[in-house]
């Protein structure tokens, strides 16, 4: 797609979308948002990138292979659950640091879990979009 308007806008918007996705992830525990929604927003940033500049550019922007990202996300989610076991509680029991931090809020293993969901979703959508895109580009 050779649209100057689209690609110029995309340059501006991609970073904002990624920032917004992280914002959604972090606020998710108290306000609307969360890992799933955040992951979809992040993936849409890469999807737009692939539409504007081709899949190669989007892959470079993502740095890692989507498959590795999915695997990493699953591992993060799983490990966040193991933290409960280490504390002598059942798997996936949330552990919290009760002192709120500026901007981020309270830290806890559910946030880590949500981060795992975030990257799994990003990885999955990117993988599908990139594969379809490469199909198109031939």
């Amino acid at each position, binding site marked *: 797609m050779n649209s100057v308007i689209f690609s110029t806008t995309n340059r501006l918007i991609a970073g904002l979308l990624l920032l917004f996705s992280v914002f959604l992830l972090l606020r998710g*525990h108290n306000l609307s948002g969360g890992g799933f929604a955040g992951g979809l927003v992040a993936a849409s940033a890469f*999807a737009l990138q692939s539409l504007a500049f081709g899949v190669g550019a989007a892959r470079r922007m993502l740095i890692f292979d989507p498959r590795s990202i999915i695997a990493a*996300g699953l591992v993060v989610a799983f490990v966040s659950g193991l933290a409960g076991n280490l504390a002598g509680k059942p798997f996936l029991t949330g552990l919290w640091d009760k002192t709120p931090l500026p901007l981020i809020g309270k830290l806890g293993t559910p946030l880590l879990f949500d981060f795992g969901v975030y990257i799994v979703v990003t990885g999955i959508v990117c993988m599908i979009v990139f594969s379809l895109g490469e199909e198109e580009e031939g």
Partner: protein
Amino acid sequence: MGTILISAIASVFLAGFLAPWLHRIAGPRVGVLLGFVPLAAFVAFALMLPQVAAGTPVQASWEWAPSLGIELSFFADGLSLLFLLIISGVGTFIAWYAAGYLHGDPGLGRFTLYLFSFMGAMLGLVCSDNLILLFIFWELTSITSYLLIGYYCRKEASRRAALQALLVTGGGGLAMLAGFILIGRETGTLEISSLLAMQPGALVESTVFPIIFTLILLGAFTKSAQFPFHFWLPNAMEAPAPVSAFLHSATMVKAGIFLLARLHPGLSPSPLWTAVVAPVGAATMIIGVFLALGQKDLKRILAYTTVAVLGTLTMLLGIGTPLAIKACMAYLLAHALYKAALFMASGTIDHETGSRDPDHLGGLRSAMPFTATAAFLGGLSMAGIPFLIGFVSKEYFYKALLDADGPGVLWEFLGVSASVAMVALAATVAIKPYWGSLKPTPKTPHEAPWTMWLGPLLLGVAAIKFGLFPGLAGERLVGPAAAAILADPGFSADLKLWHGLTPALGLSVLTLALGGGLYFLTGKLRSARGLYSFLAKIGPERWYDAGLAGLLGFAKWQTRFLQNGYLRNYVLVVGAFTTLLVGRLLPLDALRPDFTGMAGLSVLGVTTCGLISVAAILACMATSRFAAILALGVVGLGIAVLYFLYSAPDLAMTQILVETLTLVLFVLAFRSLPLLKEFSRRSIRIRDAIVSAVFGSVMCLLVLVAFQFQPGEAPISGFMSENSLLLANGRNVVNVILVDFRALDTLGEISVLAIAALGVLSMLKTRPGKEKGER
């Protein structure tokens, strides 16, 4: 001690997982080095002997899923310990042997991973206290043995044998699981130690006992290759020799024997026990030796004799007298020692000469002195020559048969016949290839590296040691194991070499004489192809093949019928089935819904619903794909608006994002899709309209019913919203449910998502018509 037990098992697993990585950086030496891990485990288990022999089992337990009665609990009594020692002891030699056998094979690291995982699973299996845990280890051994048998995965025969072993033993394992669950339901516990502590016969009185009994036997018989499931074991000889020596002689196939022995106190009070287990064992024993006599391959001969020995062990367990149990454990120990040695020796012959046909081998003694010595000792023990443990165990076997109330002298007759054949077969595998004149072989024979003969030789030495001093094995190994099987802590087994001039001794002498005579006929039997090929034609392996072919045929047919590649058919099938299943369950008063307690109508809501309906109808009528997509987009966004109106911002946000991404995906796929040229016929459109209308109505009714359904207590949503901040430090209930209250569900969902995405990827990458090698 409990910690040591767990650490020993865990270290075997850990060593396995490090193996591929270590192999990459340190090369083939790693195999030898890693052999010291099971050796250390062996020493650790040996240190437990005094405590266990005194009657105190080693125990360790962690909570796992207490609400289901599933614990990570382990206990090692005499029976477990005998198996632990055999597995880790033989396992050490196998690890060394494999390092020599697969020297230079780039897959050695991977092989070691499979082998050690198998060993760990087997160790875990024999000291599991929880039945579910036992099942998990059980199936883990099936899976790892699948990988091991199919190690030469480029060979069709290997893959077939691996799949066969997996289907037969894995299938039996599932039956066993069902049996375990029934045991848990009937007795209220899944802990083996609690089951053993129960009144003998408590389980037998249950009304479902025959079902439990059948299911457990299915598991044990498939794993231990009892007739008619014996066929997978000889086929598994496609595996590399160390695997055959380890899995198919000393360990995995004995898991079924172990299970029968473990559950003996619970199951044996039933008359079914002796009536079923002993005859099946006897039949397997006879079929095993008979088929062994006709084989032209050292490994297959050994495999069939293993089947025969497994039959003998099963028969002894079935007879179940204290003497029979003692004989069974002595026989099991003797067999593990000699069979592992003989398997390794025959693998060495194959490795060094390139042939495994006993008729083409001879005179290897001078070229391979150590291997020949090891095989000789193993052969003597297998034949039951005095001063080897094999002699002692056969004496007790005969004593048990003479002592048991069998049908006439049938048991004695069958036992002696099988032992006679064993003598002839021992001579075929342990004497024939090494003595006589040297015969030409594909490779020039020479002695194997020390890794490959040390183990068999030491096993042979152990066979002599226990043969000369059977009291040692009796007091520390066989006695405590038999005491555990009989659930009689006071039971002690003093094995003796000399019993005086007893009938058993007479039978032993007769056996040796007849066996020596039979040996000279074995050459003729091996060339009697007609009889054996006829038996192969009607044997149970045909049933397996026919069953598998039928299953695959059915799978193919139903896949073509239900999943024919057209998305519209999938939607139709899914919709129609859901309608039928759900519609049948809906109560009739769902038709008179109660709207109290629901939010009222709003102008905006009604307008949005109208918009959605119009857009949906337009999507159906559209003649261009683009129009249909736009219309569907309106439907999706309309639903998002509804979510907003009824205060579900998270859902709305997700819905909008999904809509957006669907559009992006569609844009990407758009160009590859053909133009819409043909439209469905009128009749088909009417059918689809009816199905979708009914489906929609049923879903609508379902939601209305669900809203009114109050299971006694306050709805769960109340609990969630009250506790989300309190327990989970979050105000957004939706998110708290996802990442905390129901995090396990989410973990499952993202795993499913990831697998689905891999499926999408593989479909895109392997579409027919794509050139090979393109990524």
